[in-house]
């Protein structure tokens, strides 16, 4: 393990950098990174949150995940640009391709982060740091944006290293450097320590990573169970995760959500809306040749409170009817009768449909439904989306197929090393 060289590549302010590079290409000269800019949802529809922000906007207190209205209150000069996912996905893909030309072992961690196993590659033969600098400059020259590179011999430390100082920097964090580089930092800088964990740790007087590393393990275990043990290992710089080259499923989950034009107060309308969401989402599932076994339902009340629940099924399915039954079951468990403005459903824990396990307790109806769905999909594909629709939507004023705005996860996003 210790003789490995791992790079962690992190695109600095990814969405904004990519947008900036894109703007440069199409000849717009706004400087997104040095003015008050944020990438956020569709402004015209007045919904959406801040997805990314420039450094000046960050200094004013704009945070990722804030609603655009909040952000504007904090920073009145903020200019919001709608996201261009196609640009970002392409940029991310091309970056990956470039990295793959230096080592075949590239692990995608998220849309803007990658791990590379550089052990034994030619560009680090003379000096590891020089190799990293070369790579960083190469990206800057070729793609027009900057990255941070963290170097270590395991993924965790490489990731921590790339977080040190931004932008456009190369940092090393080898195990022997952990005590003076990592330990003095506040505990929330550590990977897997979020807001909740931070509060728990502060309650027992842990403020820095060093304190966490030297804390009694049993104390952390009583407080946070296995997560406590994990973060202490991380604080010590121990990470024995292996390098996985992911191949496989194109999505982590398929979801669909919609804000309804009015507040929904009765069970029947709610069911119809859920059905219309399930219809589109399950059609996408089938189109991608996937089956799922976790169904989740989320609702947002008119007071902006969120409720959600998910359930793991004992089988994998892509059948609209089955998924709908499950969705309304979950819905009835979370709904307290208050007006609802937003519904969402999502299917996760996916598997390829050709690998599907045959279910013991399937009834005749289930098999018929399973055969029916692809037929309906094909009809809709050939004769238009509204060529066949369920009777319950006739004169109901409701959309028979809701959503369609892709709400899918990026394929390789994960918080696990």
């Amino acid at each position, binding site marked *: 393990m210790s003789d490995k060289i791992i790079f962690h590549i992190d695109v600095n302010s990814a969405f904004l950098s990519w*947008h900036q590079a894109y703007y440069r*290409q199409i000849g717009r000269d706004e400087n997104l990174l040095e003015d008050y800019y944020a990438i956020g949802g569709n402004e015209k529809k007045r919904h959406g949150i801040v997805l990314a922000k420039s450094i000046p906007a960050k200094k004013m207190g704009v945070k990722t995940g804030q609603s655009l209205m909040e952000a504007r209150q904090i920073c009145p000069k903020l200019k919001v640009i709608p996201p261009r996912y196609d*640009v970002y996905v*392409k*940029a991310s893909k*091309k970056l990956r391709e470039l990295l793959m030309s230096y080592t075949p072992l590239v692990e995608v961690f998220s849309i803007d982060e990658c791990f590379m196993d550089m052990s034994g590659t030619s560009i680090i033969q003379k000096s590891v740091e020089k190799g990293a600098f070369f790579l960083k400059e190469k990206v800057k020259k070729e793609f027009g944006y900057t990255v941070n590179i963290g170097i270590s011999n395991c993924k965790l430390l490489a990731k921590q290293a790339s977080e040190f100082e931004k932008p456009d920097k190369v940092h090393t964090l080898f195990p022997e450097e952990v005590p003076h580089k990592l330990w003095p930092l506040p505990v929330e800088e550590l990977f897997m320590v979020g807001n909740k964990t931070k509060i728990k740790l502060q309650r027992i007087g842990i403020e820095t990573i060093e304190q966490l590393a030297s804390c009694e393990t049993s104390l952390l275990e009583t407080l946070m169970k296995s997560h406590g043990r994990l973060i202490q290992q991380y604080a010590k710089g121990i990470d024995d995760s292996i390098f996985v080259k992911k191949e496989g499923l194109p999505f982590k989950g398929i979801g669909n959500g919609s804000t309804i034009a009015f507040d929904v107060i009765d069970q029947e309308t709610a069911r119809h809306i859920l059905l219309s969401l399930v219809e589109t989402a399950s059609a996408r599932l089938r189109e991608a040749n996937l089956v799922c076994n976790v169904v989740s339902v989320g609702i947002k009340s008119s007071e902006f409170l969120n409720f959600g629940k998910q359930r793991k099924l004992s089988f994998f399915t892509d059948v609209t009817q089955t998924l709908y039954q499950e969705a309304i079951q979950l819905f009835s468990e979370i709904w307290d009768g208050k007006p609802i403005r937003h519904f969402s459903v999502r299917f996760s824990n996916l598997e390829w449909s050709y690998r599907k396990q045959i279910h013991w307790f399937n009834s005749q109806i289930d098999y018929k439904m399973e055969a029916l769905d692809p037929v309906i999909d094909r009809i809709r594909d050939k004769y238009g989306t509204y060529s066949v629709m369920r009777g319950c939507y006739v004169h109901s004023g409701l959309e028979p197929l809701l959503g369609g705005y892709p709400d899918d996860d990026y394929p390789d996003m994960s918080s696990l090393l």
Partner: protein
Amino acid sequence: MKLLNHPIEMIAVFDIDGKITPAKFRYEDKVVRVEKIIKRQKEKLAGNERWVFTCMHQQNYLYELKYEIDTQKWFLFKK
């Protein structure tokens, strides 16, 4: 030169080695013949590949054409 990034209709030559040479294009209802290509280079900003041609018109005007590989569109980028 002024930035335009204006999509244009183009007639170009794609030779057997895959080299692209713009020949003539239509801009504001005028047909412009590409007289001389001074520089050709590939740019990959944000991973989007485009061929950039710096061309000369009537021996004193410089302008830039871009060909976007993914979308197969031509742009009059600068004139």
